[in-house]
């Protein structure tokens, strides 16, 4: 930790659009501060932006992190699933707390509004997928308010300009990782994920619909749990909004949400990229608070997971 400011120091590997947006988000955080921004391409736009901001940059990739392991506390990986699998070998050697934004699925699946406290105890935390971060809080709310979820489906539409080539080539990984997480978090027997990429101009905001076949007694309880969860997610994703409250249509519970991005570096329509970055920063901030206080202080200051969860 940086004693002077009382903030934890974070390094970011991956200087694409997600990494650069993370840089801006961590710069405005009260709990963490970016100290290194690392990529492999010396001429990347992200590196030059970071350099202008006075952040230490390197194009030596993972080697830089290995050699400068003392200079940071936590690490965000915003590269790719394949790179993360390689990077993780070094990450384990240097024993840092890793927040992985790739769909590599090596780390503990984390959704801040559901399992933040538990996740912070793991050394590698995986942020799942954008659709997962959007839908899992609602899946959790449905789990709390129904007795048995038979089938769960989520459909996300994102703007074409927010879907880079990696997203497009890894749609399959996106779908399978999202489906796995839906089953794990909701306890449903079967899950399906669908992704649409819409080229409309002006760009569409990320929108996700959740369909669930479930056994329930009290529909009002569903609405109440969803509404509480919306508030909880809003605390770390300000642009998270339910646009279709839970309704019962064709015997299935249906609800929709949109995510407007904060517009830190990425455009506001890119809510899909914003939500996963907001969630990742929420993990780092929680970890900082957990690391810098004793359990007793923690309880007294009431800044535990309740600050995010419903």
């Amino acid at each position, binding site marked *: 930790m940086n004693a002077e400011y009382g903030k934890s120091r974070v390094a970011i590997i991956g200087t694409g659009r997600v990494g650069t947006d993370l840089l801006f988000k961590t710069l405005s955080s009260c709990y963490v501060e970016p100290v290194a921004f690392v990529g492999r391409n010396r001429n990347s736009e992200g590196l030059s932006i970071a350099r202008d901001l006075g952040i230490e940059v390197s194009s030596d990739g993972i080697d830089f992190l290995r050699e400068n392991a003392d200079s940071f506390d936590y690490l965000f990986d915003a590269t790719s699933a394949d790179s993360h699998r390689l990077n993780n070998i070094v990450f384990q050697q240097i024993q840092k707390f890793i927040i992985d934004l790739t769909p590599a699925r090596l780390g503990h699946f984390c959704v801040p509004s559901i399992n933040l406290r538990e996740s912070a105890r793991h050394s590698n935390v995986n942020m799942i997928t954008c659709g997962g971060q959007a839908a899992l809080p609602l899946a959790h709310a449905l789990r709390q308010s129904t007795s048995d979820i038979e089938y769960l489906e989520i459909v996300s539409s994102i703007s074409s300009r927010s879907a880079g080539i990696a997203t497009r080539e890894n749609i399959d990984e996106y779908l399978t990782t999202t489906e796995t997480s839906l089953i794990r978090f909701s306890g449903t027997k079967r899950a399906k994920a669908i992704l649409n990429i819409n*080229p*409309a101009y002006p760009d569409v905001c990320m929108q996700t619909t959740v369909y669930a076949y479930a056994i329930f007694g009290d529909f009002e309880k569903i609405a109440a749990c969803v509404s509480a969860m919306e508030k909880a997610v809003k605390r770390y994703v300000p642009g998270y909004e339910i646009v279709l409250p839970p*309704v019962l*249509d064709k015997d299935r519970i249906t609800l929709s949400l949109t995510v407007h991005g904060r517009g830190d570096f990425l455009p506001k329509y890119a809510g899909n990229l914003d939500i996963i970055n907001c969630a990742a920063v929420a993990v780092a901030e929680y970890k900082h608070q957990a690391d810098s206080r004793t359990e007793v202080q923690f309880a007294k200051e009431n800044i535990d997971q309740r600050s995010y969860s419903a």
Partner: protein
Amino acid sequence: MQKKILISDPTLRDGNHAIRHQLTLNQIEAYALSAEKARIDILEVGHGNGLGASSSLLGHAQASDIEMLEAARKHCRNTKLGIHFIPGLGKNADLDIAIEIGVDVFRIASHCTEANTTRRYIEKVKSKELAAYGVLMMSHMADAETLCEQAMLMEAYGADGLVLMDSAGFSTPDLVRQKVTYLKSRLGVDIGFHAHNNLGLAIANSLAAIECGATVIDGCSKGFGAGAGNTQLETLVAVLERQKYPINTSFKLIVGLTRTAEELITKDNPNITCAHIASGLYGLFSGYVPHIERIAKKLAVDQFELCERLAARQLIAGQEDIILEEAFRLAEMRGGTEKKALAMGHA
């Protein structure tokens, strides 16, 4: 010399839209047997939105992909078995199943501006030395130049052909001529065309595509397909025969297939209703129509006002979930009580 026109028949795929994806295995078997006898070149089978598309969003199919493809496979010898696949709806695992069952023709589709989502799948099919067509859906939403750029990507991935789909039945023959001519002069691979009859122009558009060099044409028995249906197969074959285009089937052969369809499948045959015309006029995906009709009725909102608002959002195929959200918004504005009942859990 005029190249042979291949007839691709999606009655057992696009037709599934017309009956909320409820085609049965008996229907599939009987139709596949008749298609083989009628010397149909390619028979497409599956959920209306393709492999892996059975869902709450689009409708859960009566039979699984495996069951449907196996049922058709039994009867297709010379007729090739085809599938439709949209990345994002279907997964690699769905494609593996189709390869395993012995599907011959893989039509890998994307919205007309998002062709690079198909690369992995086209390359996979080609690595197995199977036939892959690139399909650009909702092709009315892009101009000829954009379509060509996208088509060239698919060609570069290894696609054996490129199919333009007029998924909303929006196009007129002049638009079809312009686009097919542009593609024909720049692509090396075969060009296909898939029409919808929402504005009553499916045959005219198909003929226009052929005149400009398209050599793979989609047609369904009795037009059985999404929206107002597709190009009517028996009419298409009759016209092609009279115009002396070389084809493997003939009107005489098609009569038997039409009879099978009439007896077993197309009792709820689509005709051109105002809802279909609206879909064509506003450029909304043909598969939206039954969802729009159902939801507009349920929430007591005006169906055409809903269409207008959906069109303004420039939706693509696969965004059927937005219909309920938009209708709910509209109902809220109109102060209807129906939406309250829905939100209280009364179906």
